[in-house]
């Protein structure tokens, strides 16, 4: 048997790189697609969560008797309904989660640790009754001092969120508890030596605000727990297998007794990799004996889910007069929210990743504050640290009068470079994106009076992980593709294209489905830019498995040895000495014969995908600044990124465009505003200002393809890297326009105008 694929390695591809209409497209343009909140079950109750109005408070007691007495209320749950869990780390969307913390995050135990922290939940016959019941639950709080800022939280006298928190990663271990959960350090070479070689050393301190992922669909689920101890859960999530694991753990269930179905998902960006409502809905359903539907309001989404970490980042970079960077050092302080686990570690590892450096030192602090526990958000941790580094690199370029793209090219990480976080890079495309930037018409286009242009590069690792896929061949030769990664932005299309390429059949003959947790083996979530890569790899493997079976069957039919059969262009052909002896058997032919020749064909793969290809991007942006109001307008934007291979280029472009616009929001307007009691003042889309359609121009894209050698078609994964460069690119453009560098995000109109006014006053004096 000699299965040949039509992959990149062989030159031309038939399906990879084409742009068919996505298989789930019609459902999504007609309103037919069912998202988290679109399902109703018979006998269904409505669940609502009572949330702490305090940023930090000890919960003395909870009295739900009045709520339970209200007609229509079926049950109320509190901390008493969940067993406490010991400290145990398991992988989730972002780094690891600790079940001791997860159980406390879904329902406060000893203390409420942020405004919006769940303290009780009710299931009732209607939303109205459920709301009335919430008002009747009496919680006795002892309000405690709170802390929101990362630097304040690190102070020795800061209010402690967890009185037993001893900083990890420090030798010898501290004896006193603090809000610093962990200190991490990454070193390469000797920075003192590196700075000694430098002619210019610049150090700056930056800050970024927490930002929310801002998915348009709020969290929602329906739990249906039956009296026999089995349950089904329907929810909007990036990973239903991960949800199953967490919920089973929190409810003390066997995972086999919990079937989780992922609904269509209305955006996630990392924010739907953890559980909030799901264990609560299951518990309400278990206690009430009825299905329970729970949906967050937008306000709840803002108060209690996400965000990305707010940070303080100090950066110091040394460079020779010729533009060679000799050393980079950084200290990162990241807000974790109410429980440990900020993405400071990847922040440290990514900070200097675009550069080929001999001497690097990055220290990171994971710091607890009275805010919601941070969740992953596109390249978690990287945008904050790379914003700081890319800003300083821009300043260095200005200092020696070198073009910033040239400076980056001179120092760019490439194949063989020892990455600043350790390992040696294989083939990577940073240089290619920089060369494209330099050659791009945008980079040379004249600027209008008063406008500025900025560039910045960005890096993200991308991941693989455990993944299953099944291809079921129908009796007419068409194929059902079952994957376990929820389709958040067109991945069904890219998986079908990879299957079509492998099998050599028309992509229209493959219909995809996202299987529930009982139809497939464990599959890690949609995140880490892994879906097109890892589920793609699984689909390709499943395709090969099916081809092997098909060739065996053809050999049987022809009564020739199986190694005398080859698979090409969607059909089995006799090969070698038998070539031309028999008419080829197409997929449809073999499907028709399946029953008589040995049974149905099912191609399977269960893999742990390794060797994800890192991805680099470079962005170019032009801005205009209204000097009288401080408003920054994005005039033109170009994203250039290495995709490895763009399986469905339209959806790759979409990822690049969407990431860039999220970055524009992060750079210019998005921030959380708290009052002095630690209560969020802008929990809605009115005052949490994500970009609207009229805020942005068209986002040009250039896809660079430096194939990832570990993937059969060269796929890297593209979803996360595009959010990394925008903040620095925009800050660099604003600096170009105003001669003024902004080190604190967002560059909102009041902040920009104040800087302009201060400069005018300074100039006058």
């Amino acid at each position: 048997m000699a299965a040949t694929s039509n992959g990149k390695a062989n030159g031309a591809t038939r399906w990879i790189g084409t742009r068919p209409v996505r298989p789930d497209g019609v459902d999504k343009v007609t309103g037919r697609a069912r998202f988290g909140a679109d399902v109703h079950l018979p006998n269904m109750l409505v669940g609502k969560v009572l949330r702490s109005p305090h940023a930090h408070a000890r919960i003395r007691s909870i009295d739900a008797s009045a709520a339970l007495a209200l007609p229509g209320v079926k049950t109320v749950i509190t901390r008493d309904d969940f067993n406490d869990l010991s400290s145990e780390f398991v992988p989730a969307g972002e780094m690891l989660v600790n079940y001791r913390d997860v159980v406390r995050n879904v329902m406060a135990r000893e203390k409420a640790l942020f405004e919006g922290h769940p303290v009780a939940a009710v299931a009732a016959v209607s939303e109205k009754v459920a709301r009335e019941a919430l008002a009747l639950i009496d919680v006795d709080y002892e309000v405690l001092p709170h802390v929101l800022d990362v630097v304040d939280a690190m102070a020795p006298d800061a209010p402690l969120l967890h009185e037993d928190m001893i900083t990890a990663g420090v030798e010898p271990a501290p004896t006193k508890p603090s809000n610093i959960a962990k200190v991490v350090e990454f070193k390469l070479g000797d920075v003192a030596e590196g700075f000694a070689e430098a002619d210019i050393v610049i150090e700056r301190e930056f800050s970024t605000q927490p930002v929310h992922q801002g998915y348009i669909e709020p969290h929602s689920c329906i739990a249906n727990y039956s009296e026999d101890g089995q349950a089904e859960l329907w929810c909007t999530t990036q990973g239903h297998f991960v949800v199953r694991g967490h919920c089973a753990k929190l409810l003390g269930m066997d995972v086999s007794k919990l079937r989780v179905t992922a609904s269509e998902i209305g955006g996630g960006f990392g924010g739907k990799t953890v559980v909030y409502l799901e264990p609560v809905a299951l518990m309400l359903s278990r206690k009430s004996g009825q299905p329970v539907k729970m949906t967050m309001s937008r306000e709840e989404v803002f108060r209690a889910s996400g965000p990305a970490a707010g940070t303080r980042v100090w950066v110091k970079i040394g460079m020779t007069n010729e533009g060679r960077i000799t050393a980079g050092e950084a200290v990162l302080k990241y807000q974790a929210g109410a429980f440990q686990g900020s993405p400071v570690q990847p922040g440290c590892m990514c900070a200097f990743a675009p550069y080929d450096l001999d001497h690097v030192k990055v220290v990171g602090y994971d710091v607890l504050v009275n805010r919601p526990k941070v969740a992953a958000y596109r390249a978690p941790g990287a945008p904050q640290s790379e914003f700081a580094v890319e800003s300083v690199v821009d300043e260095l370029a200005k200092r020696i009068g070198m073009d910033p793209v040239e400076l980056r090219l001179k120092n760019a990480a490439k194949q063989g470079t020892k990455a600043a976080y350790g390992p040696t890079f294989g083939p990577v495309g940073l240089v290619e994106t920089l060369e494209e930037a330099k050659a791009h018409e945008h980079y040379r286009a004249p600027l209008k009076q008063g406008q500025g242009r900025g560039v910045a590069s960005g890096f993200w690792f991308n991941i693989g992980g455990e993944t299953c896929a099944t291809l079921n061949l129908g009796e007419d030769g068409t194929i059902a593709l079952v994957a376990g990664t929820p389709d958040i932005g067109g991945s069904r299309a890219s998986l079908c294209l990879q299957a079509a390429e492998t099998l050599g059949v028309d992509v229209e003959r493959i219909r995809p489905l996202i299987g529930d947790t009982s139809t497939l083996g464990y599959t890690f979530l949609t995140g880490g830019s892994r879906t097109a890569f890892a589920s793609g790899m699984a689909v390709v493997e499943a395709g090969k498995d099916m081809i092997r079976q098909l060739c065996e069957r053809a050999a049987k039919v022809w009564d020739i040895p199986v190694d005398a059969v080859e698979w090409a262009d969607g059909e089995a052909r006799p090969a070698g000495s038998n070539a031309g002896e028999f008419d080829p058997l197409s997929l449809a032919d073999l499907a028709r014969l399946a029953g008589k020749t040995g049974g149905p064909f099912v191609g399977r793969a269960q893999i742990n995908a390794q060797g994800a290809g890192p991805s680099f991007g470079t962005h170019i942006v032009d801005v205009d600044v209204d000097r009288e109001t401080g408003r920054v307008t994005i005039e033109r934007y170009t994203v250039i990124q290495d995709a490895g291979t763009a399986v469905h280029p339209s959806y790759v472009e979409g990822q690049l465009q969407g990431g860039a616009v999220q970055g524009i929001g992060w750079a210019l307007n998005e921030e959380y505003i708290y009052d002095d009691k630690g209560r969020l003042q802008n929990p809605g889309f009115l005052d949490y200002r994500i970009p609207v359609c009229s805020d942005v121009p068209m986002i040009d894209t250039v896809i660079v393809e430096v194939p990832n050698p570990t993937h059969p078609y060269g796929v890297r994964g593209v979803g996360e890297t595009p959010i990394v460069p925008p903040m620095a690119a925009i800050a660099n453009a604003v600096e170009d326009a105003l001669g003024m560098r902004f080190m604190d995000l967002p560059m909102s109109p009041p902040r920009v105008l104040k800087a302009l006014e201060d400069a005018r006053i300074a100039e006058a004096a």
Partner: protein
Amino acid sequence: MAKAHVTTTVNGDPVEFLCDAEQTLLDVLRDELYLTGSKEGCGSGDCGACSVIVDDRLVCACLMLGVEAEGHSIETIEGMANGDQLHPLQTKFLEHAALQCGVCTPGILVAAKSLLERNPDPTEIEVRYWLAGNLCRCTGYDKIVRAVLDTAQEMRGG
């Protein structure tokens, strides 16, 4: 308080429903009539995911009471295709990959339809401002705007 009886037209069909005075039109569409194509992204008129057309006016169904619909005509995403024929906007959104997660898509399609009915030849800026009340977090709006402009051109016979 007894429920109110409301008589309306939804996607061309006569529809009667009972609702509480507090229920929004969106609540009624989704929870009483099971027309779940209109989405609730915010409940405060800030995201546009529940966009519907009431008597030829584009509105957020979350900012209108169900009882206010009495005697009025409502168009939702479920009525946009004509039988098995997609509306040209729906076709163009698919061709241009103008959706990623798709949750804002029904609202954006309804809003875009309303735009093209009023202005068959909008500029890019006009499209962007008309759609400013429809948040999309996935696409960066680029492909959405292109799809609307392309549809307009096609519908004009260009």
